[in-house]
């Protein structure tokens, strides 16, 4: 009976190619997991006794890796200006996160 087991080791190049393929699959799986972890939240900031009104204004800023960007005005004043609102009813803050890389922060103002 002939020994069919090959004693020839895998060439080094094929070994590193195989490792690289596994690493790429793992990286892809991580990206998918991060993508599934992307989320959006809205939280209350303030409410007044003013009527709800018929206007809405929004102000936001975008950051990348919390390092780049984020210099836009996303305050209540800017959102009220954007909506033409002079009497604020209430304010919500929101945050959207994409892949853990890009984050959008902002406020939404309601009023008249």
């Amino acid at each position: 009976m002939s020994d069919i087991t090959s004693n020839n080791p895998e060439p080094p190049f094929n070994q590193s190619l195989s490792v690289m393929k596994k690493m790429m699959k793992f990286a892809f799986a991580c990206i998918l997991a991060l993508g599934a972890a992307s989320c959006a939240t809205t939280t209350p900031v303030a409410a007044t006794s003013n009527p709800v009104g018929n206007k809405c204004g929004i102000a936001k800023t975008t950051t990348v890796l919390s390092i780049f960007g984020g210099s836009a005005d996303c305050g209540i004043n800017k959102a009220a200006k954007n909506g033409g609102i002079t009497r604020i009813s209430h304010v919500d803050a929101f945050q959207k996160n994409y892949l853990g890389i890009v984050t959008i922060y902002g406020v939404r103002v309601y009023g008249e």
Partner: protein
Amino acid sequence: MQAQSADGRYISRMTQDGTLYFINPQKLSKTEGIKNFEYDMTLLSWTDSATVNFTFRSGLMAKPENLAIRSGNNVFRCDAFKPLFIDIKKNKYEIRITSRFPISVLATILDNPDPPIFDFTQDGIHRHAAYSEGAWRKDRKKLNDIYRIYLYSK
């Protein structure tokens, strides 16, 4: 009828008079003579008009004139528009305008597969901002879903 495509594109708010629908700001990439054009829209279930607010950056500190939205062969002129504010941003002016269009105009625009174009002049100089074809194809579907929800709540 699926409504998932419009998720995140708008928010709705109950008021004493009915429902307020705020369509989140959308940047238009194809601009001429201006930069950073972004518009948002407010629909009120108890009225038959849409408030369209838009912002753009321009080197000219001049109020827009002759505002219209072009959709295919249709041109919808707007007489009810006015500036909300003007700010200085770096070396340009950021101008915010509020305008009002009848809801029938929105319906006609959404019916048309051609991307709508915001048209106006500043000191006689023509400016415009428009969707790209692909962006309009995607956003039109979402806006149609929102419009159907708005009609449902009337």
